[in-house]
């Protein structure tokens, strides 16, 4: 830009090499928008000083929504005036991240008119991220996007934008229609996505099989991981084909099965399906020969999160198997039951996983009306400190005798 020579020797180093360069992308945006050149110069300064120059949050948003816009201001607005305001808008992605070029171009045109022209495709939770919006431009950007069928996603203490793997659209392993489920839950909980009313964030993630391509078990408050109950489908000829093509079935399939439920005699593969733990390894190695069964659904787990505050958790089983069929009412009832309890009893910034740790899984299950089953634990408790809530008195026994 004319007003500032773009001297960025450090960032220029990151234009070299075979991997796509984000610096080139910012420079492309800077060709037509001074926000890009200010961003480049401010980032160069961060690279020199080894510190970021963004101030803490600030409450900005669009009318009637409490989430979906992350306020961002730089701490040197006189020197970098074009990015004095540089807010993020999270735009709810279409399930499975499929686009028509027409829709993508529409988003680009709107973002060219109102913002920096810089995006993330996509953010970690899954949204389209529009990076760098002036406060005054938030509402017009939103309304133009809305007129073209797009809406804002979640942020803060609300339902975060749900996300899913591409599921049955292009994967033979998907044990339920993840995109349909994700879209359905997203539409049901529009109010909860846009208007934060929880102790902290709540994430829905839908994975079609135990390979878990959207990392549901690591980062969703409720994780829907596709699985099956019947037998792995097998094409015996295709098994032989893999063997002929040089796959060492004994070493690479049989010996790596965690349940030790596969046998191979050089001609025939035998699976003890009742012992199978549905890990996916054999299917991953021989996709042409093996497939999940046809009695499919999802294993539903609860409570994963990153470390802040009580440490990182993986989700744990709450429903071992559920047929994932619309309208998913039983699941929604359960989710809402959990929300009621968590909103009533949860502490500020306490994820549901932390809440469950604090009150105890047994008490949590009782409160939300789910029966405990052995599938919920890796093993039963090792300590004898059981909280019994009731005990007998001498009189109880006498009363009982009197009743007889």
């Amino acid at each position: 830009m004319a007003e500032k020579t773009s001297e960025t020797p450090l960032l220029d180093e990151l234009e070299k090499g075979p991997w796509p360069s984000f610096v080139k992308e910012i420079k492309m945006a800077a060709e037509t928008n001074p926000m890009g050149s200010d961003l480049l110069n401010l980032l160069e300064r961060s690279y020199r000083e080894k510190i970021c120059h963004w101030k803490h949050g600030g409450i900005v948003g669009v009318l009637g929504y409490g989430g979906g816009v992350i306020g961002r201001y730089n701490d040197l607005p006189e020197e970098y005036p074009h990015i004095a305001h540089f807010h993020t808008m999270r735009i709810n992605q279409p399930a499975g991240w499929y686009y028509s070029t027409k829709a993508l171009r529409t988003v680009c045109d709107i973002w060219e008119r109102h913002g920096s022209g810089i995006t993330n495709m996509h953010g970690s939770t899954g949204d389209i991220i529009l990076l760098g919006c002036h406060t005054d431009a938030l509402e017009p950007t939103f309304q133009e996007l809305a007129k073209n069928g797009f809406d804002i996603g979640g942020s803060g203490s609300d339902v975060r934008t749900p996300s899913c793997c591409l599921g049955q659209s292009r994967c033979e392993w998907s044990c339920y229609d993840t995109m349909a489920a994700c879209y359905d839950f997203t539409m049901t909980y529009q109010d909860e996505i846009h208007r934060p009313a929880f102790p902290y964030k709540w994430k829905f993630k839908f994975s079609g099989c135990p390979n878990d391509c959207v990392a549901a078990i690591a980062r969703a408050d409720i994780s829907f991981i596709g699985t099956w109950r019947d037998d792995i489908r097998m094409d015996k000829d295709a098994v032989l084909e893999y063997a002929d093509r040089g796959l060492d079935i004994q070493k690479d399939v049989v010996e790596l099965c965690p349940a030790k439920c596969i046998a191979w005699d050089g001609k025939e593969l035998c699976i003890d399906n009742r012992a199978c733990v549905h890990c996916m390894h054999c299917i991953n190695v021989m996709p042409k020969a093996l497939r999940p069964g046809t009695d499919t659904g999802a294993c539903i787990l609860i409570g994963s999160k990153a470390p802040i505050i009580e440490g990182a958790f993986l989700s744990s089983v709450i429903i071992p198997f559920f047929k994932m069929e619309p309208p998913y009412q039983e699941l929604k009832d359960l989710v809402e039951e959990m929300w009621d309890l968590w909103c009533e009893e949860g502490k500020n910034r306490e994820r549901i996983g932390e809440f469950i740790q604090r009150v105890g899984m047994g008490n949590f299950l009782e409160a939300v009306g789910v029966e405990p089953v052995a599938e919920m634990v890796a093993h039963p408790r090792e300590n004898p400190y059981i909280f019994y809530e009731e005990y007998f008195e001498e009189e109880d026994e006498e009363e009982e005798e009197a009743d007889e």
Partner: protein
Amino acid sequence: MAIDLKDRITDIGPPHYEQFLPPVIKENYGKWKYHEILKPGVLMHVSETGDKVYTIRAGGSRLMSIKKIRMICDLADKYCGGHLRFTSRHNIEFMTTDESKIDEIIEALAELGHPVGGMGKSITSIVHTQGWIHCHSAATDASGIVKAVMDAIFEHYANMDLPAKCRIALACCLNMCGAVHCSDIAILGVHRRPPIIDHKNLRKVCEIPNVSASCPTAAIRPATVEGVASVEIIEEMCMFCANCYTVCPALPLNNALNDGVSLWVGGKVSNARQEPMFSKLAVPYIENEPPRWPTVVNSIVNIIDVWRKDARNYERIGEWINRIGWPNFFKKTGIPFQKEHIDDFKHAGLTYKRSAHLTY
């Protein structure tokens, strides 16, 4: 600013995905039978109906200009009937039913600077957070480290030459917007200096009880400092999680002299073979070295090289370490084991070695 409420649209949700599906995807939805990786970055899915779709996966940089998105749209218009998709790891996928177009698409992508790969036993794009580009609590940059690391290990993106898949992720602070804690290799920005309290402004911008309550180790207590209501921090109890800073802007932790990067290894989310597991600490601290973070890059290259040569087929980093044991991981990689590796947070004792199962 006056907002015209008439005709205002809200709560419509995302566009329905069906309108964006390429015809072959729409027609074979739920009917896919099997797939094969034809070569690095190229998938073939075969349907029960006999239809085939070829997918070309290209690396993206996550941060994209609208100019680039339009160029990618041009490519999808030319070869893919105006459809494309993105993956959960910032890759861009182009789908076609015409096998003869695959190489043309790969060439066109190369011209745009987007290499093809990231399938099977390879490293795929690194998921990451905003870093110094857009975050207030970043202890390091995100895009810069990712670019430098991917350049250095690019051969493992473009070829399927590893024992198993390897998933790398980066988060620029402990908030972990990217949930990196279950990655084969996690790069995590860390602060190492307790917050510098802005006593003058704290009570104006923060609720003191909330600030106290936000500290997982109860190191923050209400205090009157120079006649002003504020807080005090017991510095030896601070483990630099920055939860207080998230709640209160008057407690910044960012510090050029002390911020840096830690490396974690052996996590996974997939259930394949061994159960999902967390990543564990490999390197507690590496100082920030912009623009190309050579120590971080070399450490990661070293871990991948040692794993690649030592692991059995299909063993991901965590599964390999579970077999050889952590002492051997440190021995083989040459990474020094030190005090910081031993957990001292809640339930730390569960991570101590409580058997005589050791190798000599």
